[in-house]
């Protein structure tokens, strides 16, 4: 009972903040809603007993990536809003129709009941503790981990080169 109540509250928050992100007129307000959305998602992870991933979500998404967005929004201090010369209504209807169509499809897929047995190859490991996660990350998925770190390094160098004033 308490678990489903938490879920519904958090789900409502996530969706409301999500809608606010894509509809807000002011870009800075949009970024603010994005922070709220990420925090609500982190709370959802915490309600799934995955405190480690919840903390990483707050640290990297809410505390790191969104600061970058805010920084860029403030640097790109726009004189005129980019939506000003558009006809957002027509696009909104068209986009809404497309989204509704795919959404209906996803709902059908998600609620289509097929009972499958649990994959037997993976022995169940307790979720929510740091140790099994660390073992999976540094033993089973070591090479993807190293590739991800290379990706981050390349992205960092690329971002610095791109943001430099003279190319």
């Amino acid at each position: 009972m308490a678990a489903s109540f938490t879920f519904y509250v958090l789900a409502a928050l996530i969706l409301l903040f999500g809608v606010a992100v894509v509809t807000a007129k002011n870009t800075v307000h949009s970024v603010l809603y994005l922070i709220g959305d990420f925090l609500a998602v982190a709370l959802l992870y915490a309600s799934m007993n995955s405190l480690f991933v919840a903390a990483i979500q707050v640290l990297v998404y809410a505390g790191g990536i969104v600061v970058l967005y805010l920084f860029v929004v403030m640097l790109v201090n726009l004189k005129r809003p980019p939506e000003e010369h558009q006809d957002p209504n027509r696009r909104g209807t068209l986009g809404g129709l497309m989204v509704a169509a795919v959404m209906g499809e996803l709902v059908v897929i998600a609620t289509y009941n097929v009972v499958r047995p649990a994959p037997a190859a993976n022995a169940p490991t307790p979720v929510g503790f740091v140790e099994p996660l660390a073992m999976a990350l540094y033993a089973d998925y070591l090479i993807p981990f190293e590739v991800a770190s290379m990706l981050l390094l390349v992205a960092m160098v690329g971002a610095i080169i791109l943001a430099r004033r003279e190319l």
Partner: protein
Amino acid sequence: MVSPTHYMLLSATLFMIGVFGVLTRRNIIIIFMSIELILNAVNINLMAFSLQWQNSIGQVFTLFVIAVAAAEAAVGLGIILAFYRNKETINIDEMNVMRW
């Protein structure tokens, strides 16, 4: 009781909100934020199945998605800054030339 279907519906809705943002907004920063919403929707699914099968691998993939999102944000925002410096706009409709 919260079943994986609940999480999947939440994730699908958040995903479609992100897609709606990408389709309808012209401000490239907001389009980027919509992509972050889509990535979060994917993460919710991964975490839900990790909980369902009591298996940490879903969480490992979530961490990878977060790392990729960080890389994407850094490079993408760098491109936006470089573009803004040349064209004084962040409207995606005006990003229609391969060189200038």
